[in-house]
């Protein structure tokens, strides 16, 4: 997902309070009292003011076309009414970080010429089964509004939204110029919906399906056959998460008539024999998702490693992924492209260090590397020794349980920090960690923007000293001056949060689990992290007092999520009463169970111009 700046839907001044950016440069005219909640003045507003010089407005619009960043556009829209209107007509990308923060109607009323919509739905903890099924984030009302309002819409990007087949069909039919559809972590649709997109979006360039949950209850539809029969404009086709079988001949034919295709990621039903055929038909590919990467002999027999290597040698690949069921004997086939690779995703391949090392030793230009912890500290050391240009590293656990063996540790982290000084993003799952290794990383990798460390055992201290992990995370916030995203774990006291509040001035996203001693932790964060947008907390001993310490900051944030802490209904009601522009949702795990003090299992609060939503399921209580 592109990381566009947040805040396109925050109305000016009133809600931001004294946040950075302040009230913007208001017009000097005191007669003019902005009532920007009513939508565009150009529409049905009624002529309360003298209309601005039309020529000036046209010039302004031409100039504003050059502003692309949402942040800049938000600032421009605050200058005066004329700028507000001009900006609203020229904004091409509409980014809505929380689909419930604003109503579709209001969004389309304000912005007239949108070509590109990004919508995000459920809170991130939904990925970990913490948001019950049926919570919401339906894209239907959005599609219904966008259709008539933006007939020239070209691109839709949805993340964690509930998307039905009907929604996809409506998208396909509403936008004749539609070019790009990107669905990330969405659910609710099946191959029926994909068929509608393929069939009706004649100018489709991008169809990216990333970690969606495809409904397999429906009968399967051969959606690949539904693409136009003539040459297509396809540039990217990513469907590795569509785990049902598909029509391979149709895919071969599609690839052959898609001369612009650069990215192709297939699902695990594709063995190397078929992969080779696809590669032959699309020599211009730069991104390839390799499917199963094992043999399934067809009429031509078993493919040899050298034959496969020839295919790779003839390619121009820069990014490889897939390897869903990899037979390690085939790995040497990718050696010819390793030297050019900038991105390699082995995170679904259970490889040992011995299997990884011969490959990684060739990947000197690697910038992005995803891998499973099966390669161990030894594998990571090899990465560190070769990939000095590495910017992003993600190490996932094969066995995602608390008491699994765990093959990577502080040793691997330390090695990476010593070899990969340009690291910007790290996600690291492990069972054992030390403060020393984390501190080393904070010093060796000053460019870190995202630091997400998951010590899988809850409340686990430094494995050597037995101390809490406070100093390690403290060093990260202190030394990594560009840090905007942080996930903490291990045994942590309030001290860690004191550090975070004191030094984490740029942090926008903070994830906390099983950490902290008292409400002071929350207070440190609210008071210190002035740029905080998203705070997600679970299973930490924070009570209403901690929650209320954030009152004056909630309007500056996109959302706060807390589950399994020590919140009560009273505290949550307090917040709801004092903050009218917040929507406060509470959920209980066992609806029949009252408990003593009406404890709250899950709290999700977010600023919103739309007020309480009307599609909430019974288990959601909006205060």
């Amino acid at each position, binding site marked *: 997902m592109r990381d566009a700046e947040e805040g396109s839907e925050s109305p000016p001044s009133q809600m931001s309070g004294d946040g950075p950016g302040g009230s913007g440069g208001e017009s000097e005219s005191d007669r003019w009292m902005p009532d920007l909640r009513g939508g565009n003045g150009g529409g049905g507003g009624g002529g309360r003011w003298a209309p601005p010089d039309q020529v000036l407005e046209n010039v302004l619009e031409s100039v504003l076309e050059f502003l692309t960043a949402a942040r800049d556009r938000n600032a421009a829209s605050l200058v005066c009414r004329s700028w507000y209107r001009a900006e609203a007509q020229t904004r091409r990308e509409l980014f809505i970080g929380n689909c419930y923060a604003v109503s579709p109607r209001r969004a389309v009323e304000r912005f007239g010429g949108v070509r590109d919509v990004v919508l995000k739905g459920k809170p991130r903890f939904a990925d970990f089964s913490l948001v019950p099924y049926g919570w919401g984030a339906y894209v239907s009302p959005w599609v219904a509004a966008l259709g008539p309002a933006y007939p020239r819409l070209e691109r839709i990007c949805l993340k964690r939204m509930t998307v039905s087949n009907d929604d996809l069909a409506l998208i396909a039919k509403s936008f004749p110029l539609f070019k790009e559809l990107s669905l990330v972590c969405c659910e609710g649709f099946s191959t029926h919906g994909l068929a509608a997109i393929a069939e009706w979006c004649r100018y489709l360039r991008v169809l990216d399906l990333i970690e969606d949950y495809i409904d397999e209850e429906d009968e399967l539809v051969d959606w690949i056959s539904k693409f136009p029969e003539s040459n297509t404009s396809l540039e990217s086709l990513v469907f590795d*998460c569509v785990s049902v*079988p598909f029509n391979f001949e149709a895919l071969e034919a599609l690839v052959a008539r898609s001369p612009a295709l650069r990215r192709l990621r297939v699902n695990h*039903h594709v063995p190397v024999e078929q992969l080779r055929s696809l590669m032959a038909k699309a020599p211009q590919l730069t991104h390839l998702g390799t499917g199963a990467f094992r043999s399934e002999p067809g009429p031509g027999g078993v493919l040899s490693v050298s034959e496969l290597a020839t295919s790779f040698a003839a390619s121009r690949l820069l990014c490889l992924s897939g390897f869903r069921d990899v037979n390690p004997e085939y790995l040497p086939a990718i050696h010819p492209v390793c030297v050019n690779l900038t991105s390699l995703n082995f995170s679904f391949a259970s490889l040992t260090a011995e299997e990884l090392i011969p490959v990684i030793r060739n990947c000197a230009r690697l910038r992005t590397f995803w891998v499973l912890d099966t390669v161990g500290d030894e594998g990571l050391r090899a990465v560190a020794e070769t990939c000095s240009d590495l910017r992003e590293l993600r190490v996932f656990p094969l066995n995602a349980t608390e008491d699994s063996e765990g093959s990577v540790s502080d040793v691997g982290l330390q090695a990476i920090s010593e070899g990969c000084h340009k690291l910007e993003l790290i996600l690291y799952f492990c069972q054992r960690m030390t403060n020393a290794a984390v501190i080393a990383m904070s010093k060796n990798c000053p460019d870190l923007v995202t630091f997400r460390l998951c010590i899988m055992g809850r409340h686990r201290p430094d494995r050597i000293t037995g101390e809490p992990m406070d100093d390690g995370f403290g060093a990260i916030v202190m030394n990594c001056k560009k840090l905007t995203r942080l996930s903490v774990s291990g045994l942590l006291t309030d001290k860690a949060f004191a550090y975070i509040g004191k030094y984490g001035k740029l942090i926008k996203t903070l994830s906390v*689990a*099983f950490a902290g001693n008292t409400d002071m932790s929350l207070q440190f964060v609210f008071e210190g992290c002035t740029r905080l947008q998203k705070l997600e907390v679970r299973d930490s001993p924070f009570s209403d007092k901690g929650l209320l310490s954030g009152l004056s900051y909630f309007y500056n944030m996109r959302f706060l999520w807390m589950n399994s802490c020590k919140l009560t209904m009273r505290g949550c009601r307090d917040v709801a009463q004092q903050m009218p522009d917040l929507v406060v949702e509470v959920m209980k795990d066992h609806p029949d169970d009252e*408990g003593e003090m009406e404890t709250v299992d899950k709290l999700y609060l977010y600023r919103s111009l739309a007020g309480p939503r009307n599609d909430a399921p019974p288990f959601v209580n909006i205060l």
Partner: protein
Amino acid sequence: MEAAADVENLKATELRLGLPGTEEEEVAPPPSTPRAGSKRALAAGEEAKKPVAAAPPAAKAQVVGWPPVRSYRKSCFQASTKSKAAAAPPPQQEEAAAGGLFVKVSMDGAPYLRKIDLKMYKGYRELREALEAMFLCFSGGAVDGAAAFNPSDFAVTYEDKDGDLMLVGDVPFEMFISTCKRLRIMKGSEARGLGGATGVN
């Protein structure tokens, strides 16, 4: 002060198992004990208030969504291990499960696993009977040989698409078949109470 003395006396006269002079440790409740309202010890044969897939009291409880790995990723590994075990269907096939829906069945304590075809059974009762027949030889024979397959000593659970351990019988049978990836028959103390109280129909 007096209250403390009273407590001391009370403790002295308390009837407990164990020799006089031995102090029984307080057993700390596990992290995810069901909370006050729904806490009821599931004794053998006692009907649960509602069908609860509660964590067994003594074992290390699994916490929902921790470690934070997306279900998508977890389910991919299940799919890949399954295709290694069974023959992978030819990719061109449109039908998802042409030859039946075979899942592994394990039983705690049994030396090897079995495989059954879920499509062979019309409902939970038939499935249960088949499992009983299959694993009869492993059920409690050690104690006195005449032990029958006592339902309340066993609980049939399954692993669903997301990798979660679920109790068999909660959802309609068709839905169960489509999400069940493998079966596990739990026995002994872990299962006591759950087996007899399921809504198996």
